[in-house]
């Protein structure tokens, strides 16, 4: 998990909402991207799972967009978001993907993403002195915690003991 210790302080509620909104959009886009990949590689079960996760992130993004209405929201360039890692915390690392991955493996990645999101907001909650920022950070942290629990519940449906690693019975091919 990436550390949040070094991120620059978030100084206004508007800035925090801009970050939260971007995180949800990024997560939604990433899940869609992964769903596309799984469709391309005919892992339909996982494609459905990622598509569903994308839908949930989209709903969350809409909620935040509602909250943003009437607020003073700064416009932030993509490179200037104060995220701790290489990407926004809730976006799954594409480098961890595999076309044969199991739902359990995928959910574990999703769990890590949600935990990162929770840690991000929780960190802001701890360090901020702005009451309004604190209020929103607490709310978002709570929501991410719910997401963590949701993913954990899903994970429990796929116990490790029953997991069977998929295996590609065909050799690789040369498309070009």
């Amino acid at each position, binding site marked *: 998990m990436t550390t949040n210790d070094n991120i620059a302080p978030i100084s206004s509620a508007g800035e925090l909402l801009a970050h939260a909104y971007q995180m949800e959009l990024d997560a939604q886009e990433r899940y869609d991207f992964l769903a596309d990949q799984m469709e391309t590689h005919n892992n339909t079960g996982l494609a459905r799972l990622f598509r569903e996760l994308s839908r949930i992130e989209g709903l969350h993004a809409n909620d935040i967009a509602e909250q943003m209405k009437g607020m003073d929201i*700064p*416009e*932030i360039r993509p490179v200037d978001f104060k995220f701790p890692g290489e990407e926004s915390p809730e976006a799954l690392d594409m*480098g961890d993907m595999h076309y044969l991955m199991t739902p359990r493996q995928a959910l574990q990645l999703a769990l890590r993403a949600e935990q990162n999101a929770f840690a991000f907001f929780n960190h802001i909650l701890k360090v901020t002195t702005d009451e309004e920022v604190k209020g929103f950070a607490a709310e978002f942290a709570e929501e991410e915690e719910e997401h963590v629990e949701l993913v954990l519940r899903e994970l429990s449906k796929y116990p490790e003991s029953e997991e069977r690693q998929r295996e590609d019975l065909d050799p*690789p091919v040369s498309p*070009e």
Partner: protein
Amino acid sequence: MNVQQQPAFKAGDYKSDITPIWCPGCGDFHVLLSATKALAELGTPPEKIAVISGIGCSSRIPAYTNCYGFHGVHGRSLALGAGLKVARPDLTVMVMSGDGDGFSIGGNHFLHACRRNIDMTYIVMDNRVYGMTKGQPSPTTEPDWDSALSPGGTGLSPFHPLVIALASGANFVARSFSGNIKATTQTIVEAVRHPGFSFVEILSPCVTFRPDESSWKTQTHSASVEATDDPARAARRIMTDDGFNVGILYRGKRKPYDIHVEDTFKDPAILGEEFAV
């Protein structure tokens, strides 16, 4: 407060609606993401950018962007790009290919593109293997990597792209790791902005034929020093690093090649006169 002008373009504006055929987990996904982020940061309209490639997994990238693209023949992407840039100096030309395409079949063009120093950016996604043809050793593959084509390994020392680029006259030399999206984005931005021929080697793991490359995530580390404009220093640094040192290593000051086609033309009728007796 980081409140700035909203950029005219978002990374998504540079992505097409085509789903890549790359294996999930492939480093090239990261490169695509970083490249689109970099282009958004640069703010050049997508129609003013050309992404040129050769053949191989990474060379599929043009169609995954929303820029003008050319998926050419194996190894000749730099020549396509050079012709395009000379003919259309107003365009941002990015040549993007892989280690087999760029360093093996396209090796000669690599030398001369560096030497020519046309203002363009060359990004090589190096996964040290031919993926599209099912896993043969490339010029950057380790000597002992076992494969059907070279059982027990080739026994050959790997090609050193950065040293060659530097020795051949590239004006900007950098190495990046695909998984470091932020750093890769920034490196591409700077490579495009730097005048002349910019070369960026991006270590981009192949999950299918080189699962061992998953260790690159932890093996790569940032260059501990600032980029230099002294080629000798840069060469020493590159020669002695472990191949996983990432960052901008060299920013040259050579003047870019300046031959180009103009926007408007004079009437060619003036050209016959020399033949009149």
